[in-house]
Structure formats: C-alpha cells, structure tokens
C-alpha cells in the first residue's frame, strides 16, 4: 500500500466492473435526461421537474420516507439495544433478519389479506367491538408495511455498533457516578451513532423510491418518485423525463449520504483501541 503508483493488475476487474455497471449507467441516465421524445437535446425535462406536480411529489416522497425512517429508528434502536443484552444474540438477530429473505411481493400480497375487510386485522378490531375499518389502501397501511419491510435493515447496523461498544467504558461511566440516562446519552449514544446513520441510509434511500407497495398496499394513493419513474419508462415511454427524475433521485441520495456519512476525526472508534 506504500507505493500507490504501481497499482496491482488484479484490481483491473474491479475498475472494469465499476466502469460498466456504475459509471456507464449513471452517465446514460444523465444523457437521456437531456433528450426529449424525439431524441433532441432539451432542458425541458428539468423545467418540467420543477412544475407543481413533481415538486409536490418530491415533497410527499420525502415526507413518507422520513416517517418510515423515523418510525424504523424508534422501533429498531430499543430492539437492537435489548438484543445486545440477551443471551442468544445471534439467534434473536437471525429471527429478526429472516423475514427479509422473503420476496417483497409475497409480503405485500400477504398484507393485502391481513389488512382486508375480512382479514385477521379487522377480525381483531371487531373482537374489541368496533366495526370493520378500511385499513388497506390508507397512509397507515403504507407506512406500516414499509416499516415492517425495512426494520431488519435498521436493526442490523445499530446492533453491530452497539455490540462493539467496550463494556469497560460503560462500567467506567457508572463508576464515575453517571446515572443510567447520562451513560446512555454521553457514552452509548455517541458511540453507536454511526450504526444509526448507516441504518438511516439503508432505509431512507430505498424508501424514497418505493413503488411496488405504493400500488398494492396504498392503492396508488401515495405517489413516490419511484412510481413516477416506472410510469415514465413503461407507459408514457418518455425516457427523458424518467431519467430526469432518476437524476434528481441520485442527487437526493448523494445529499443524504453526505449528511449521514461518518465523520472520521481519527482516534479510536467505538472505544476500542486500534
């Protein structure tokens, strides 16, 4: 690693991979975003994006992605914390991760049944004396299912960073007279913040472009940027506009990566000496 000028030849496949499957597609998307329906150069797509429809769509995508991420953190953080305290950590972790092995579509169809007028959710509600409610095709069902799908991706990084914390640091904090709350606030939370940040990245970014469950669970009453891209490519066949939305999605993602990216200041990570 000391001689940076002579890069080993075996890195070549990685460079080719990155060129073919990362740089080339992004370049193509950017290129298409400047084309109109007839294939001529235009800036119209960009002007169109700032029209009221797409602006509102962007805002609502962000709002739902924020809700989904926020609720995921609320549920995942205590779960991950509790996991680190249990005896069979790996087993519990596995149980939380297993649902993510099942295909998204299958899970969505299962929820159509669960949330249906005659489904188990409504049977439970009726058991407590309330009439059948329209659960499917509401904001609630959309956020619920999205959170359910994303929770493993939030639990995992938070668990990893909590688990890595050296317990000696917590003991030290307690010995020095810090209350449990202070220990959490001043020791545990700052040390595990990188796990939360990676969890937020893993959830917020895909949540911005969800499109399967917007149709199956929200009945297209929730429109995200992902839905719009799908429609532009498959129905309208306006690849230019579809690409323009994709370019903005990429930009939003870069911004989020920068905001949540780890700020390395040197020094020991997670309280463990290097």
């Amino acid at each position, binding site marked *: 690693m000391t001689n940076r000028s002579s890069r080993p030849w*075996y890195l070549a*496949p990685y460079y080719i991979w990155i060129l073919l499957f990362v740089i080339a597609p992004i370049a193509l998307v950017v290129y298409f975003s400047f084309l109109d*329906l007839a294939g001529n150069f235009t800036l119209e797509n960009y002007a169109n994006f700032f029209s009221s*429809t797409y602006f*509102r*769509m962007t805002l*609502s995508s962000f709002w739902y992605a924020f809700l989904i991420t926020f609720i995921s953190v609320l549920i995942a953080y205590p779960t991950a914390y509790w996991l680190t305290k249990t005896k069979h950590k790996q087993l519990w972790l596995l149980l939380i991760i297993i649902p993510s092995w099942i295909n998204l579509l299958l899970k969505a169809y299962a929820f*159509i049944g669960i949330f*249906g*007028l*005659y489904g188990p959710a409504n049977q439970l509600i009726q058991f407590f004396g309330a009439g059948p409610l*329209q659960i*499917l*095709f509401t*904001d609630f069902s959309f956020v619920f299912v999205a959170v359910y799908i994303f929770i493993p991706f939030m639990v995992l990084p938070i668990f990893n960073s909590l688990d890595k914390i050296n317990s000696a640091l917590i003991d030290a904090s307690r010995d020095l007279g810090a209350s449990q709350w202070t220990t959490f606030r001043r020791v545990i939370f700052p040390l595990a913040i990188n796990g939360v940040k990676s969890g937020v990245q893993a959830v917020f970014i895909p949540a911005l472009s969800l499109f399967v469950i917007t*149709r*199956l669970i*929200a*009945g*297209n*009453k*929730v*429109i995200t940027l992902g839905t*719009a891209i799908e*429609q*532009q490519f*498959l*129905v*309208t*066949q*306006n690849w230019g*506009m579809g690409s323009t939305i994709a370019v903005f999605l990429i930009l939003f993602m870069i911004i989020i990566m920068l905001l949540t990216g780890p700020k390395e200041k040197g020094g020991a990570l997670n309280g463990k000496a290097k």
Partner: protein
Amino acid sequence: MKGIIRASAAIVIISAVLFYAVHLLESSSATSGSGSISVYNWGEYIDPELISQFEEETGIQVIYETFDSNESMMTKVEQGGTSYDVAMPSEYAIEKMKENDLLLPIDHSKIPNLKNIDPYFLDLPFDPGNEYSIPYFWGTVGIAYNPTLLEGQTFESWDDLWNPTLEQEVILVDSAREVIGMGLNSLGYSLNSTDLGELREATDKLKTLGPNVKAIIGDEIVEMMRREEAAVAVTWSGQAADMMWINEDIDYAVPEEGSNLWFDNMIIPSTAGNVDGAHQFINFMLDAEVAAQNADYVGYSSPNAAALELMDPEVTGDERFYPTEKMRDRLEVYENLGLEMLGVYNELFLEFKMDMEK
C-alpha cells in the same frame, strides 16, 4: 491471492462456456424453423389446453410468454432480443407498430378460417383490409359492481360513480387512458380528445371523485371484487367476466354516455423467425371449436361468429358482454394519439393520483 485469481479465471471461463451454449441453443432453435414458434400474449389470455392441442396437431412446439401492457410488448419487440412469431396487441398499439415497421403482412390465403370472423370486426380503421392483424378478442370498459353490497344501487351513467354514498368504495383500473377517458366520457367528450381544455375539465371533474376512490390498482381488482372487499370497479369487460365467474352477485354495465370499445388482435412481428408457423397458429386459433373453447376459458368476447354458434346462448346473448351493434355505436375505439399526447394523458393521470393524497 492465487485462490482469488483462480476463482475469477474460473468464473470468466464458465461464463464464456455458458454464453457459447446459449448461442448454440438459440441458433439451433432458429434454424429448426418449422419446429417451434414463440407466442407473446397478455397474461391469462389463452386456454393452455389449446396450446398443447396445437402442438399435437401440427408438431410445432410453442414457446409461450406473457406481457402486461402494450407498451412493454412493443419495447421488447423493438429491441429484438427474442424473435416472437405471434403477438396479441390492442388496436392503437397496432397503429403504432405499423408506423414503426414492426409488423409483417399477413397472407390471407394461409388463413382460411378468417371466414369465421364476424365482418363487423374486419376492415377496421386501425388496419384497413386486415393487412397486418387478425381479430382475437374484443370488449369494453365499464363498471363492475356488487348490488348486494350497495343496497341495490345500479349504474347507468358514469356520474353514478360520484354518488356520495359510495365514499371509499370505488376501485379504478391503473391506466391513464381508461381513467381520463372515463372523465371525458362523463362530460360528453370523445375519449380520444386532444383538446387541452377538455382534458383539463375532465381531470378537474375526476378530482372531485377523489373521496369515493378506494384504490387505483391493476389485476388485483378481480380478487378484491370476488372477495367482496370492494363494491364497485371501473374495469375491462373481461375482468368483470372473471369476477362474475366466481361471485355471481356481481354485475357489469357500460354507462350510457359511452365508453371504450377495444380489439385485441393477432399480429406477426417483423422479427418473426417462423412466419409459416405463425400463420398456422393464427389459423388454428380462428377455428370455430378452438375459438369457442378459448372464449369460454378467457371470458372476453369473441369476434368469431362461427364460434359463437357453438357457445352457450346464455353467454353470447348477454348484452353486457356482447352488446348489440346499436349499443356499440355509442362506444369509441382508442386512436393512437402519439407519444406527446400520451404524455399529456399520463401527466394528468398523475396529477389526479397526487390529488388523492389529501
């Protein structure tokens, strides 16, 4: 390190071998021309038994694939990765494929069964003289509803959907032309309107339907209606027939202001590898008995007059699915409005969907 190099070399070699094998397979299937045809159809749109029957009768093997929208079908044909021999697009897609030279002319001398088709469905404006297409099924867009869930309410007009008692009850099909077209029809405009003022008016009217809309979904509609999760749906006649097959309470109506009349047709894409086999397949599907069996299975309306005679008169006499010619007069066929106009329809549809979030 050596392990990694060996592993990656192995992957490269295996990929190369597989590529070669695929190439061999593809070229062999192409050269054995008369041996197979590939059929590209909508999902749930043929009786699978008929495919086996065709294979037995002709010895031609059928490779069967499905698509879920005219647009995705055209994109795949245009890219030419697979050489489809027969496909079943709708009329406006045929116009567009004709413009783009994606169709081969059909040799009528090889389709003797063409005589079975009701002349009403031949020589239509989208393909004069049926040079490129042969009718497969036809149908309408209308309202499927379950009177038992609605205290006997019926639907004669599109405006009945706006009834305040239907709050959160109406399901719409997730397709821009159907929904915007319904808005246009309800105002008495043509569903091929390109007048931006009319389109704006239709969209604004649709927005007032918002509180009644339960969801905008695709094929899931059938299941929702069957299980009585929903009471009203704007959908295609064949989907309504599918629902009624299971749940006899459901009824179907084509509103009096008019609606869409559509035709799906068999065509031979320009990329076809086995044109002769394709003609045999089309001729087979037009056989009276075959068409009757197919119509029974699929549930859409058959344009095959000879087949209709073999079918249950209760089905073919059902004016909801076989409207009389007089009733058909108030229906309109979609015209190919061009990509630009399709874009306008889609933007308005998106605007309508966005409006429902509130």
